[in-house]
């Protein structure tokens, strides 16, 4: 029983071999991809492992305290080099092995030509409460 965050990146993750941007797929391939992702989430709801999933818009802004009485400083849209998160899914699973298995499955979503896109996903453990028994 541990929660994991699965992060999808617009940018910043290593590019998978044979990568084709989504806008070069056929509409049917895009539909198939989206259906796969939706079915994946629905399946996890069914197994009682789903916690949350959200997509994030591509635009992102860095914001910083601007000083006493001044507006916050913004760094405009992300520069090309910066990491850009596309969305997340949080799962609650019995083991790290299960989390890896599910991440692998999500990365196998179909892309161009119906082939798995093998996109790199980031898997991060969510910090938990300290156990009651220690020492």
């Amino acid at each position, binding site marked *: 029983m541990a929660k994991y965050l699965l992060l999808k990146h617009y940018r910043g993750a290593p590019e998978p071999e044979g990568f084709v941007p989504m806008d070069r797929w056929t509409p049917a391939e895009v539909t198939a991809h989206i259906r796969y992702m939706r079915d994946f989430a629905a399946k996890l709801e069914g197994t*009682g492992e789903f916690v949350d999933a959200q997509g994030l818009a591509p635009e992102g802004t860095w914001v910083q305290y601007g000083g006493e009485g001044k507006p916050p400083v913004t760094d405009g849209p992300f520069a090309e080099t910066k990491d850009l998160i596309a969305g997340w899914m949080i799962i609650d699973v019995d083991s790290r092995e299960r989390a890896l298995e599910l991440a692998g499955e999500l990365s196998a979503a179909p892309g161009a030509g119906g082939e798995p896109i093998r996109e790199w996903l980031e898997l991060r453990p969510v910090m*938990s409460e300290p156990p*009651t*028994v220690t020492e």
Partner: protein
Amino acid sequence: MTGPARPGGVDEALLRVLTPQVLGVLVRRGADFAAAEDAVQEALLEAVRHWPDEPPRDPKGWLVTTAWRRFLDAARADSARRRREDAVDEQPAPGPVPDSDDSLRLYFLCAHPSLTPSSAVALTLRAVGGLTTRQIAAAYLVPEATMAQRISRAKRTVAGVRLDRPGDVATVLRVLYLVFNEGYSGDVDLAAEAIRLTRQLAALVDHPEAAGLLALMLLHHARRAGRTGPDGSLVPLAEQDRTRWDTAAIAEGVAVLQAALTRDRLGEYQAQAAIAALHADAPTAAETDWVQIVEWYDELIALTGNPVARLNRAVALGEADGPRVGLAALAALDPALPRHTAARAYLHERADDLPTAAALYAAAAREAGTAAERDHLIRQAARLNTLLRGGESGGGGGGG
């Protein structure tokens, strides 16, 4: 879904105690688990509706009758269940069977080896503990729909299970231990709930490890108020305000443990409880009997070979025989063990090697699995680094 009781309404605690008993009766009469559970939930709803106006003289009898009627109604309405219903009707009237067998059967069913740990935990809290799905979901910080799915899958998994042989007490204990260790989110105190269920189990079975686990839970729970500061930060054992420990729970834990130990069937929970008892017994951290604690860790390691126990033993050894001895014991263990770096940091600090300790505390903070632990360790690193810079602030006292 059962809502909270209105003032002057239904005694929810009573319902929670009766739920597993009623469920146990239905299962014994031949209802399959999932259908019995549904029927009991409906009977509980009825109780919430009717009891405030017409309190029954025999609440359990009332619930059994209502739930059984519901079960038969559902079975009749469902043609697929026809045959089973006939089989149930043909069964002879149930003879007098003690309640304890019914409740025990539920414990075994909910901790069935075919369930994953999280499913077993959820089902146990629901069926044996009588908690609502919403309460369990809140305690585990997952959506209610997720928990509902987990429970209904678990019910389906055990639907065909017939408990003609006694189940494995060790599996049940493992599930209750998981519940206890899960902490305290939501409006239900899972640690207290685990104690309640373990206490019930220990009364039902003659098993020294059931008593051992109960003692372990009581002894840890007793120290709970001292484990965190007012801001939720972690307070290490040595710095805890011992007046905040619950002495009644400690006394009970020690008594339960002693009774279990006299039976001379040592198990891992009894050994862990013995260590907890030695901590709880010490009037001050300095007066802790570390030599005996090391001996109990030796017992625990002999029983389980658990690498985490080896790590804890090394720390205890550092207290008993000095930090260098502790560090030597630690060096023999896998550095990938959880809290290995934190233990090294602590022992280096005790050995007055502050620069190494500070660096190790910072490294341990990066490896921490919980936010409270990470915050505590980074504060330790900050405290030592401040000290090493010439101590411009009194950052040490009270873990602040």
